[in-house]
């Protein structure tokens, strides 16, 4: 970074909000995934939308690329920046601008922490649905960029289903508003396009979200099974019965063992091959009747025991192990590669067998905790990245797991994004024309490709979108 650029950035945000010493930059070298590392050229921390505009204007002028970053809890290396790139952290823009309890909307700055929003609207009997495991730290801006999910997205949808309007600063510093607070687009659904664009279309500086009413009644059930297959069959049977639980989560034996050996021990049966958490919510009568059906299904699919809780405290106890599973796995080894893939629900039993085979082949510790209801797997590998041989085995195992998921018609990511971690896998599921289309769509927002360069779309695998046009002229 040139001294003149540092000086100009300092003039925009104040010198104390520009970080460029190596020790300062180290904080930003990684996100939540320990397998990628890169130092940004400089970190700049704006406080207002006007400052974001000025920064992007400036960078556009000097043609320096940038990466926007929230809390850095992402799991795909998406918020890492190279030394020739400016990292813009948005955590100072953390104001909740407006809450409308009647129309159930909130207007937020991107740096608002996910869980803080739900806390703020709790007095109105409302909550914000998407609840990624990192919700105590992750920001709404990051959730928008990644189209974040969470356990409670089965019934109510992921981030894209809860964002209605965005104020966006485009990479050339111009400002535009996408969508409307009512959720009906003005023209094509550009909000739908922007959510999940992994920071490559611009920076959202104001986000209008939809809030939901806290359900009148909630029932959480915990069932344990002697095989993963029978637990998976229970998942399919519940959905096939017309019941859409608020959450439908599975943990395998390794995950349960990790939880029960930790301070988060929740009393999960350690001899079970799989534990299923089913949460039903809605009106009391509906929950009651659905719970009876679910209990029946769990029993007929071979559940050994079904525990049920309806008070907040009892439910929290059943959830504790699931919510803290990642923390518990952290005890197993210094590093945890949290992976993310999706398979059709019907392929769950087969894919779990395959992951077990891969685990054995590569001699790794893999714990599975996942959103079974929507087939969203999280095979998590505990390892020590200081051992290069092990790290190489982890990379190879991740690759094989992804290949297996793609082979059954799945996807390489359900909620963590592509970032730079899964760039190589994109051609496995998208052909050259589709990848080319993605790149071209990005260029409609960011013609010079200055926002989060090098992520999501492997440029070398894209068919040049202008080829046909030039052939004609």
């Amino acid at each position, binding site marked *: 970074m040139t001294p003149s650029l540092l000086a100009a950035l300092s003039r925009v945000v104040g010198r104390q909000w520009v970080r460029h010493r190596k020790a300062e930059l180290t904080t930003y070298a990684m996100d939540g995934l320990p397998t990628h590392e890169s130092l940004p050229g400089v970190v700049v921390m704006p406080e207002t939308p006007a400052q974001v505009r000025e920064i992007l204007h400036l960078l556009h002028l000097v043609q320096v690329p940038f990466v926007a970053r929230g809390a850095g809890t992402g799991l795909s290396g998406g918020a890492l920046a190279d030394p020739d790139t400016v990292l813009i952290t948005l955590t100072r823009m953390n104001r909740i601008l407006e809450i409308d309890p009647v129309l159930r909307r909130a207007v937020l700055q991107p740096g608002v922490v996910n869980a803080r929003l739900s806390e703020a609207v709790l007095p109105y009997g409302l909550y914000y649905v998407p609840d990624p495991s990192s919700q105590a730290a992750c920001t709404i801006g990051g959730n928008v960029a990644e189209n974040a999910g969470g356990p409670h997205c089965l019934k109510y949808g992921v981030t*894209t289903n809860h964002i209605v309007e965005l104020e966006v600063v485009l990479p050339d510093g111009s400002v*535009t508003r*996408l969508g409307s607070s009512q959720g009906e687009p003005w023209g094509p*659904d550009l909000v*739908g396009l922007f959510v999940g664009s992994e920071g490559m279309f611009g920076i959202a500086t104001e986000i209008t979200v939809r809030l939901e009413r806290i359900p009148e009644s909630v029932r959480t059930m915990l069932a344990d099974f002697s095989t993963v297959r029978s637990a998976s069959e229970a998942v399919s049977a519940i959905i096939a019965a017309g019941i859409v639980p608020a959450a439908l989560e599975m943990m395998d034996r390794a995950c349960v063992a990790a939880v029960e050996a930790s301070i988060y021990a929740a009393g999960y049966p350690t001899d079970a091959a799989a534990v299923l958490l089913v949460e039903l919510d809605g*009106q009391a009568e509906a929950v009651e009747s659905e719970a009876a059906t679910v209990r029946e299904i769990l029993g007929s699919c071979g559940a050994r025991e079904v525990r049920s809780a309806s008070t907040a405290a009892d439910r929290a106890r059943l959830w504790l192990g699931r919510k803290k599973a990642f923390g518990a796995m952290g005890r197993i080894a210094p590093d945890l590669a949290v992976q993310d893939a999706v398979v059709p629900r019907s392929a769950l039993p087969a894919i779990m067998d395959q992951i077990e085979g891969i685990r054995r082949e590569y001699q790794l510790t893999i714990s599975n905790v996942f*959103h079974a209801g929507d087939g969203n797997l999280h095979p998590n590998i505990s390892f020590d990245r200081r051992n290069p041989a092990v790290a190489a085995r982890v990379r190879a195992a991740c690759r094989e797991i992804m290949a297996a998921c793609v082979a059954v018609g799945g996807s390489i*990511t359900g*909620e963590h994004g592509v970032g730079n971690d899964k760039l190589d896998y994109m051609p496995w599921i998208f052909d050259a024309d589709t990848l080319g289309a993605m790149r071209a*769509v990005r260029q409609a927002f960011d013609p010079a490709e200055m926002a989060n360069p090098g992520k999501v779309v492997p440029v070398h695998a894209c068919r040049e979108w202008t080829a046909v046009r030039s052939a004609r002229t």
Partner: protein
Amino acid sequence: MSDTIFTRLRALLGTTGVERDSHGVPRATPDSPDSLSLVCRLAHEEGWKIRVEGRGTWLAPDAPADLVVSTTGLDQVVSVSPADLVATVQAGAPLEALRRRLADYGMWLALDPPGRPERSIGSIVATATAGPLRHGFGPVRDHVLGCTVATGDGRLVNAGGRVVKNVAGYDLTKLHVGGFGGFGIIAEVHLRLRALPRADLTLVARGTRDTLTSAARDIVAGNLLPGALELLSPALAAEADWALATRLTGTEAAVQADVRRLTSLGELSWVPLPADRTAGFWSTAARGSLAGPVTLRLGVLGDGVDDALDLLAHDLDEGLVSAGAGHGMIRWTGDAVLDRLRALRRAAAAREVPMTLERAPWPIRRALGHFGAYREGVGKIVGRLRGTFDPGQCLSVALEGAE
């Protein structure tokens, strides 16, 4: 030129895939996404304008074009996966046929769009015309997991996928759902299904508009989440007064509990429809949207329904109105001249309400556009996207007006 086009298309698709429409315009009926893309590529290379037609039940086939591309040859339900609750369906498949096929498996696509039951899936997705079920099950975008689209220059883009949760790459599907075919011709879609609800009951209350909108607000504020909560104008409901119809879905116990709550709320007298009249009731309301040449939708917030209905009544007429009392999507059908529609769009925009022209004769579409009154900066992005997906401007779609 028509003869040349006809001959060239026949060389590409064979004699059975190419005919002429009633005005003598060559009509290609490709039977695979690949052959669809070939037709687009040829049109792009030759600079021919394409009009897309589905089953001819929604938009009038009147856009000027050198050739017609019909999706009726793409009418297959490619696959249904009951265990995954996902179906892959070609664009020309009629909704009714899909509905019957899914019902055999105990499954359901929770979409009840306006128009005739045989309307094509491609038309519903391209226009994002959700019906009353939007209240409980979301807009069309929530039901589409992915799609295959032939661009204006004949590339096939495979957006999204067949799994219910997927963030691999940008969400290109969103561009095509409600893109009115301006970014390509939808060949195939992957749809998210649900299990057929065990109980499905419709209740109707009648009264003045004000009574009903006020009651609807109470229902929304109360702890009730019906599948649909739709306000129907007298003309649409074919009755003397306004009607508020609510559709309760779920388990038998849950629906019965909803009925108890509903009837305990306010003064309205709710009449349950007998099972054999329910489908007919909703289908009449859906067909009502075809009873005038122009259909448009306004997206308002729940508390803005009254104001928007007043606006419609003032700028146009009471017309055939179906209004989502909770989600705030208001659909109006009737007859209106261009100037009135323009004035409505301006007045709506001043209230921060987007107005989308869903169907109208070509002169109105061309002048007004499906979309308009963009906010600053949006037009530039949309223009670039159109240039990307239809670089030769072959697709005869009036996304924006010619104003």
